[in-house]
């Protein structure tokens, strides 16, 4: 019988290179409830489903068989309707390839870029099992414990999603003239995980609003809801959507952070206002502090560019040629340009954008760096999207959402 090698995997009976896998946290029954994507190990553009990051705000619900699933659509519509999955799949389909990114991805870099200190790593991952165990106990970490944890990185992936444009479904039910937003409700239910929110802020010495037991819900402005790439998706990466990613059907909201991609969808309600959902009024907001009366809900991601080679951990580098490479994406449109600096931002050179460059997907970029002089180097990369936005776009906010700053790689050449 074939036995696993240390450095590789057995794949379909053959010895093969090791496959990238998520760093997962499991519940007491061995079920994955959270996970971080091995971003530094990925090739290609699409993240394998088994390596896709997992973040949940409430309890992961028990699975629902697709034949038992019914989507209720009501509110300010002419013809309220209940759709089975088979009904939904009769609509004209659409496939979108897009980055999914947790709003809190790379949150720790906000502090690092502004204040310095310990640099977060995309290799030394958080202990997701410790987080999962804490979650099962509804435990809340102290501020000191939070400061000793690794901050959230690698909560980003990219996939191909197939479903039906929400706009097609809304046309079928007919929108009333005063329709302003669409409220999505998932069948995941529970009390918000306060530890997640405290980690987001970086401290737990303040009181959070307790909404009690709720369903996950978000109220999307109508313009985004009617965008043809906003989908109700039942497929991911060429196969049926898996339970942990929201099966039978989830919302796909390209360009907007993961909290808008409502999983385990069970209800759609059309409203004449933006609802005060917990997860857009109290959490997933921009603001100066917990008591800021002018908190704004977050929507589109900023402009992002990360260096995946070399990493700080690769230092020291030998003199010679090195391929500086990474990925770039933007919440508002296609990436048009990536620039690289090897002198700490004094001078910049255009990187090569590897085809294809798609609107919602990340793009692989690279630059060949010839270095023959020993010393310390600071490599930086910045992206520009088709709307002309150059990173960084998102200012510091107390929940540290949508970080899109420029993070240098620090290496020594010997």
């Amino acid at each position: 019988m074939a036995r696993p090698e240390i450095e590789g995997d057995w794949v379909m009976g053959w010895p093969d290179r090791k496959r990238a896998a998520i760093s997962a946290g499991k519940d007491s029954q061995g079920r994955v409830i959270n996970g971080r994507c091995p971003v530094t190990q990925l090739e290609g553009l699409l993240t394998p489903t088994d390596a896709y990051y997992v973040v949940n705000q409430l309890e992961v619900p028990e699975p629902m068989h697709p034949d038992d699933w019914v989507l209720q659509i009501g509110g300010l519509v002419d013809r309220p309707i209940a759709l089975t999955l088979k009904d939904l799949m009769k609509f004209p389909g659409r496939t979108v390839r897009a980055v999914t990114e947790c709003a809190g991805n790379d949150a720790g870099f906000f502090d690092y870029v502004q204040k310095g200190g310990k640099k977060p790593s995309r290799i030394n991952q958080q202990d997701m099992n410790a987080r999962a165990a804490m979650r099962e106990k509804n435990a809340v970490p102290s501020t000191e414990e939070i400061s000793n944890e690794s901050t959230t990185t690698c909560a980003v992936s990219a996939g191909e999603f197939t479903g039906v444009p929400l706009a097609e479904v809304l046309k079928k039910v007919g929108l009333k003239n005063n329709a302003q937003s669409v409220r999505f409700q998932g069948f995941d239910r529970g009390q918000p995980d306060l530890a997640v929110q405290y980690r987001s802020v970086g401290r737990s010495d303040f009181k959070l609003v307790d909404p009690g037991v709720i369903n996950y819900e978000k109220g999307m402005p109508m313009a985004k809801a009617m965008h043809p790439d906003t989908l109700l998706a039942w497929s991911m990466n060429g196969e049926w959507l898996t339970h942990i990613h929201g099966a039978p059907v989830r919302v796909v909201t390209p360009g907007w952070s993961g909290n808008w991609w409502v999983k385990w969808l069970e209800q759609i309600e059309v409203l004449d206002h933006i609802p005060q959902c917990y997860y857009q009024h109290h959490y997933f907001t921009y603001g100066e502090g917990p008591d800021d009366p002018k908190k704004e809900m977050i929507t589109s991601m900023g402009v992002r560019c990360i260096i995946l080679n070399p990493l700080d951990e690769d230092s020291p580098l030998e003199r010679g040629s090195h391929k500086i490479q990474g990925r770039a994406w933007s919440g508002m449109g296609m990436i048009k340009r990536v620039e690289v600096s090897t002198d700490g931002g004094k001078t910049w050179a255009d990187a090569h954008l590897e085809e294809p460059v798609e609107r919602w997907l990340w793009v692989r970029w690279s630059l060949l760096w010839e270095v023959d002089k020993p010393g310390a180097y600071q490599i930086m990369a910045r992206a520009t999207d088709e709307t002309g936005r150059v990173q960084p776009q998102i200012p510091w906010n107390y929940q540290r959402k949508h970080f899109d700053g420029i993070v240098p790689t620090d290496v020594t050449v010997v």
Partner: protein
Amino acid sequence: MHIAVCIKYIPDPEAAFSMFSIDEQAKKVIPASGLKHVVSPFDEQAIEAALRVREQHAGTRITVITLGNELSRNALKHGLAMGADDGVLLADAAFEDGDAYTTAITLAAALKKLGAIDLVLTGRQAADGDTGVVGAGIGELLNLPVLTFAKSIAVDGKAVRVERVLDDGGEIVEADLPAVVTVSNEIGAPRAASLRETMRAARKPVVVWNASDLGLEANAVGAAGSRAVRECVFAPSKSVQCEIIEASSPEAQGAQLAQRLREARVL
């Protein structure tokens, strides 16, 4: 028709003896941490029997009941995934360390609370304790007829007809409903839970009742109410003797071996 199936969540009876330790002072058998637990196989067959009755009587409701701690929810989940409609978990610290008598008292009280049960099914015995008397105890406490060791069950009108397994054959007996039937393994393999039913199981209703919900005094159940006294718990001592049969020829060795085996009543 409403069928209640009493089931028990036990350490895997197929587990090696080395997976258990004995606490002689506490007079308990302690399963190793992480040892797999399963629904007692005879109880699983009782669920199967209930499902077969339902196939003949549309609209039948099947309730699975178990007595145990929170982990015993898994037994209910299994029964619900096989196709039962709802579950009852009897959980209370007062229920712990009971005997067959207090188990029967507790289950009988739960069945009474459920109300209007037509048929109560149990396994012929639990695969851990092997007492085999809880089913009969329930019948006695509820004043119901008890039919044991069923290999097939048929419900016809207001009566239940059971084919019983005997040491030397079988017999067919009948009783008026409501009745208690204990199910033997001859009824056949239990069905595997389908994916759809497994997913549905998580949404089927499960109620949790404690001693107070059942109107039972804490000193009437569990260890306090037990009538059986466990004097001691010990591992059986094993001794192995080996005899080398020597003879002048292989034929003579064979003859002597046969003689020894006859004496040992192996042949």
